[in-house]
């Protein structure tokens, strides 16, 4: 029974806070976290609503394994309608606050309405209060974190907060917890700030237990931990290099999108790679990387703790950036680096710090700068419009200034805060936005890795790698190697990855476990914790149910099959170098088979048969 069994409902409009029992049927059908929160959201809001209106709700949710000793059992999600995409948004974060919420006795918190004045939510077990946040409104995540710790005189308080970008309406603001972990994508932080909610501060001391089969649980947990330790990716690659282990690998196979996806290989890849983070700097002889770090309960520890060279131009006289903080992971290093043609590791690390400090998504930000650079080089943007700085590919100055402007919500930063879709539309070059459903791609080029392109095109939260990470199979050979350049068999692969991921995200586990674990490793942990017959098959079906539920939400929000595609560049302009040379994305070719395997009609709508098989209504 590892659910706490209770949720908090916080009405920000009238300040009312109530406690509810978790819906029994829904938790059996949707498990927890992503699935369960999506079910609540679908039932409670009109999918067509304006995401930044009080009508939208925002749910912070844990899974049944969150807060337990299951390796990586510290995840939580934020589910809402996202302003970047106008689709259902589910952003997932590690760190410690998810486990703390569970330890305080809550599976989820549903925020509704809009507070008349800035507030934060304070939770100490069953003592829950909305408290005025006027003193921290207009300040950064880092300042808010420090202020709350001081105010409550509690170093163990776990905090999630939005920064100035969210308050300023940046379309891709995230919610940062524990200083440098984030529910980063799709603008979930923008929704939080639109409700005048600055932060959530939690202290839980009740303990997470209530296991269906305690002995079986510890056995399954220990087996899971052993499997992670023995696997070369989770046992060696990720602890040593983090996700940055991928930079050189993906560049070599010709799938590292470069200069706004004009190219698929980046000359400066090594300089911004995980390996480079270990190399001593010329200035002070210290490497960028200080140590690796884990989220709650995680035996992988992929997190990067880094410093910036104090002599670097970006941090001159700015001592708040001189200490250690969360360093680059692969997607950020790619978006800020390769996609802009910038190979300055310190500049990238600095922008990453600023993204954490002020709460915005480095993937969307980096890709938006890339689009701006292409428009600048094409003459669609003038130097006056870009704040007096030349926005050429390769300019670390443009990148760092851009980040500072977005953080402060000033000048050209207001344009960059739109995200690439709105930015490119504004300046008349919509085709230069590398997005699906309004959300920017991560770091794998669909020309060099065909399956991931189909996953981007169909992902329910817009382009996203963590909805169906076929890179595992197509590049790393997990669980089996498939040819990245062929479209054959990919629809089935994409569907299988997407469904399994839905289950992992709903359990409260980190997706990175799946380099070593299949659902066969996860099912025994969930079953021992929850009871009720959780098998690998049931988990896959739960993932499929979640996928269709999200799809339904999006259809009602106005998405059509025409949105299940990739930008023309990836479908028409072939890769120029590397193993994928001469190849374009075959996404259109793969789509009919994907729809069919999903049990959707040719318009991408789930058929009645599919609905009844999965127990979805209408």
């Amino acid at each position: 029974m590892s659910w706490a069994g209770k949720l908090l409902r916080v009405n920000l409009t009238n300040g009312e806070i109530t406690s509810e029992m978790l819906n029994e049927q829904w938790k059996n059908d949707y498990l927890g976290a992503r699935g369960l929160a999506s079910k609540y959201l679908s039932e409670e809001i009109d999918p067509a609503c304006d995401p930044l209106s009080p009508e939208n709700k925002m749910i912070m949710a844990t899974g049944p394994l969150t807060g337990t000793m299951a390796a990586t059992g510290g995840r939580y999600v934020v589910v809402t309608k996202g302003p970047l995409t106008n689709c259902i948004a589910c952003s997932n974060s590690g760190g410690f606050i998810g486990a703390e919420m569970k330890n305080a006795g809550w599976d989820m918190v549903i925020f509704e309405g809009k507070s008349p004045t800035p507030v934060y939510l304070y939770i100490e077990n069953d003592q829950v209060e909305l408290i005025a946040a006027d003193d921290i409104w207009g300040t950064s995540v880092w300042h808010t974190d420090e202020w709350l710790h001081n105010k409550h005189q509690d170093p163990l308080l776990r905090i999630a907060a939005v920064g100035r970008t969210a308050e300023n309406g940046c379309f891709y603001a995230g919610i940062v917890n524990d200083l440098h972990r984030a529910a980063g994508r799709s603008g979930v932080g923008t929704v939080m700030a639109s409700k005048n909610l600055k932060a959530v501060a939690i202290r839980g001391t009740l303990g997470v237990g209530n296991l269906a089969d305690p002995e079986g649980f510890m056995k399954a947990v220990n087996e899971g931990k052993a499997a992670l330790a023995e696997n070369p990716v989770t046992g060696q690659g990720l602890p040593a290099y983090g996700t940055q282990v991928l930079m050189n690998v993906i560049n070599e196979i010709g799938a590292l999108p470069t200069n706004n996806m004009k190219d698929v290989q980046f000359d400066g890849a090594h300089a911004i790679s995980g390996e480079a983070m270990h190399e001593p700097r010329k200035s002070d002889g210290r490497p960028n990387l200080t140590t690796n770090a884990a989220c709650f309960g995680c035996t992988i520890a992929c997190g990067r703790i880094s410093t910036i060279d104090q002599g670097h131009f970006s941090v001159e006289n700015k001592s708040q950036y001189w200490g250690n903080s969360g360093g680059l992971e692969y997607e950020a290093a790619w978006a800020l680096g390769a996609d802009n043609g910038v190979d300055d590791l310190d500049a990238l690390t600095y922008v990453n710090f600023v993204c954490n400090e002020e709460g915005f998504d480095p993937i969307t930000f980096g890709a938006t700068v890339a689009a701006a650079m292409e428009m600048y080089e094409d003459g669609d943007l003038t130097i006056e419009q870009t704040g007096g700085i030349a926005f050429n590919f390769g300019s670390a100055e443009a990148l760092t200034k851009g980040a500072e402007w977005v953080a402060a919500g000033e000048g050209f930063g207001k344009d960059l805060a739109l995200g690439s879709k709105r930015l490119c539309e504004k300046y008349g070059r919509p085709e230069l936005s590398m997005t699906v459903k309004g959300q920017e791609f991560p770091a794998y080029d669909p020309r060099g890795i065909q399956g991931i392109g189909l996953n981007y095109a169909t992902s329910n939260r817009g382009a996203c790698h963590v909805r169906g990470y076929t890179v595992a199979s197509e590049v790393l050979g997990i669980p089996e190697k498939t040819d990245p350049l062929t479209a054959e068999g990919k629809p089935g692969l994409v569907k299988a990855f997407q469904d399994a991921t839905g289950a992992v995200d709903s359990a409260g586990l980190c997706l990175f476990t799946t380099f070593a674990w299949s659902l066969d490793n996860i099912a025994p942990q969930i079953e021992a914790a929850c009871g009720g017959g959780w098998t690998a098959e049931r988990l896959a079906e739960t993932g499929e149910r979640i996928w269709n539920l999200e799809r339904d939400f999006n259809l009602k929000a106005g998405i059509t099959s025409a949105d299940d595609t990739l930008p023309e560049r990836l479908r028409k302009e072939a890769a120029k170098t590397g193993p994928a040379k001469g190849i374009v994305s075959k996404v259109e070719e793969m789509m009919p088979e994907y729809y069919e395997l999903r049990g959707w009609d040719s318009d991408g709508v789930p058929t009645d048969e599919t609905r009844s098989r999965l127990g979805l209504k209408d």
Partner: protein
Amino acid sequence: MEKALVINPDKCTGCLQCELACSYENEGVFNPSKSRIKVFTFHQEGRFVPYTCTQCSDAWCQQACPVDAITLNLLTGAKEVNENTCVGCKVCTISCPFGTINYNQNTGKVIKCDLCGGDPKCVSACPTQAITYIDANQTGMEKMRQWATETDNSPSNSAANV
């Protein structure tokens, strides 16, 4: 052979598996706030440091206790709190110089590391071997070994140095 916990903060990733294992062993639930071992994060420095009772031979807590609730386990060398005797006066928490014995609001007694009766659960839970349980007379071995590897007295190298 008496054994002791040896903590190497350099290896720690701050995952809290040790705190989870400790609280589960002692409280039956996963609850870092009730763990006898605590991991401290020094954010600016990028360091994680696990800390717990080192089982002093002449233990301050034991000497301070007015009702003799803290006794020596002869097999493990641990100073153990006898819950039935402890009156929750907290004098031991004041006398311990290291802060590793603490009051538990739920029970009205104090809690501290008791080495799990000779099978410390934090040790088996730790994925990085940041906590080990070894011969109490040899707790410096790993550090000595580390320094030993840096001692270079091979003839060829000394020749190259002159």
